[in-house]
């Protein structure tokens, strides 16, 4: 198992993808959080005393995990999809014919990678957001414990998303397929479902909406996303409480496990031509 994990690390760091991807993510998060912070700061300096703009620091600092989790998904999936795309799965399976060991190693190796990309992504949001606030003369909130707690949870959420990526990779196999699916689902399908189900006057649907992966992730990350704020304010009307941090984390982890197990059973055990 240790051999397989070592091999996975060497695979990951021996192509250019990891730093290109990290660079893209960090740049994207810096721009988003910085832009958002500057906008909020600019607005609040124009209308001093407007309380509707308070508490936006957590949203700004959490923008990475709330809208950019496609990056850890790609990092997690790439270990599987790149091997199938370039057929290097053949030498891998020849070197370790027990495929469960290979896939287990990919999942374990994804953990520190997820952690690392989580630290980089979260730091980018803190730096971008902090600069944006500081430039526009708004308190950055970086001196508050809750900011750092949320930052820690954001790193954790990134890590779990990386595992979801491994699961998706096992199931979909195709690199492009994973990216298209992840983008379409997280940016289009889920927001519609989540808003729709939260707005309905059915407590069951309100409850179910909390179990969608993005919602679970937002709960895990400390409930800092805009969606979470909108949907929670909608659902609290019907009395359905949002998931807690741990519940959200477990639900998201559940997605990773279920995707991975199905993928392993139906895709990975097949003949390799």
């Amino acid at each position, binding site marked *: 198992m240790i051999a397989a994990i070592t091999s996975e690390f060497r695979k990951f760091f021996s192509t250019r993808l990891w730093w290109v991807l990290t660079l893209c993510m960090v740049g994207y998060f810096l721009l988003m959080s910085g832009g958002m912070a500057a906008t909020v700061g600019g607005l609040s300096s124009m209308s001093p005393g407007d309380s509707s703009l308070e508490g936006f620091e957590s949203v700004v600092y959490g923008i990475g995990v709330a809208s950019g989790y496609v990056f850890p998904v790609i990092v997690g999936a790439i270990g599987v999809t790149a091997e199938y795309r370039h057929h290097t799965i053949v030498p891998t399976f020849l070197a370790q014919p027990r495929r469960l060991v290979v896939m287990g190693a990919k999942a374990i190796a994804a953990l520190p990678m997820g952690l690392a990309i989580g630290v980089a992504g979260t730091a980018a949001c803190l730096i971008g957001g902090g600069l944006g606030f500081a430039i526009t003369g708004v308190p950055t909130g970086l001196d508050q414990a809750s900011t750092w707690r949320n930052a820690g949870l954001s790193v954790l959420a990134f890590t779990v998303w990386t595992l979801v990526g491994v699961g998706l990779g096992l199931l979909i196999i195709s690199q492009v397929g994973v990216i298209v699916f992840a983008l379409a689902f997280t940016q289009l399908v889920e927001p519609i479902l989540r808003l729709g189900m939260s707005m309905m006057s059915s407590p069951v649907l309100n409850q179910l909406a909390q179990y969608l992966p993005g919602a679970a992730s937002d709960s895990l990350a400390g409930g800092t996303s805009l969606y979470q704020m909108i949907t929670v304010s909608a659902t609290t009307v019907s009395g359905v409480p949002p998931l807690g941090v741990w519940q959200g984390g477990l639900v998201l982890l559940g997605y990773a496990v279920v995707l991975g197990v199905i993928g392993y059973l139906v895709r990975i055990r097949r003949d*390799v031509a």
Partner: protein
Amino acid sequence: MITIEHMTKRYGSLTAVDDLSFTAQSGRVTGFLGPNGAGKTTTLRMATGLIRPNAGQASFNGKHYLALDKPMRHVGLALEPAVFHPGRSALNHLLMLAPYAGVSRERCLEVLGLVGLSDVADKRVGKFSLGMRGRLNLAGALLGDPSILLLDEPVNGLDPEGIRWIRELLRTLANQGRTVLISSHLLSEVQQTVDDLVIIAHGRTVYQGTLEQLEATSGEQVGVVTSDVAGLTALARQLGWQIVASPGASEHPGQLVLAGVTINQIAATMTQAGIPIGGIAPMSNNLESIFLSLTEGQGGMR
């Protein structure tokens, strides 16, 4: 030693490998031959657990591939097509395999030197020529210093110098007591390298034995063209001449290939019996034509 026993693989109604059995001995280079699509690659993939056979099994020094601890230390494989991540350097390709083989970076560099790729160790494989890819593929097979080597079309893409080099390397490896199995679709390509031959066609073994035995079966042969094939056939049977099935015999109905008799005897006897001779000539019956006659009309399937 490699033992393949009753391997069978069916794809729907198509039987790609049909009850195939053979062995490859240690200390010898065995050629695994057959036309493209005869089932060579499928057999190698079944033997190594990449695809599941419908029946049969393979063993390496008595052990199933899946039961080997660190397979790379026992069986070195270079399957075709050679696969690499194009963005990974040659050294990194080996380093990725090294933990599985339980070897160090030094061994990776050593093997790169052995296959003559030291100068391009840090070059991306995407920029490699076909011959360089073949060498890197071989380096991966040698990495764990295995006692069994299984090389799929190892001569592919090599220049004449490279071919001579690999022949010497394979001979050295076999002389060290290793089992070396090389597959090819051309007998001429491996003729100078192999001790033993396994020839398959249509997913079945059609010949297993030494190269010498195969050569011995090819005595002097004479091709005769006549308008009275029936008469000549009767005469040959009467005198105990051997009638050889010749490749493409059906396209040349006026032609017979005879063996166990000299060209002069045939000419004299036919003249005596009044059978017209349209043409008569000795046939240089090389191994390739035996190979073709063994596999004729049986390939072209995948």
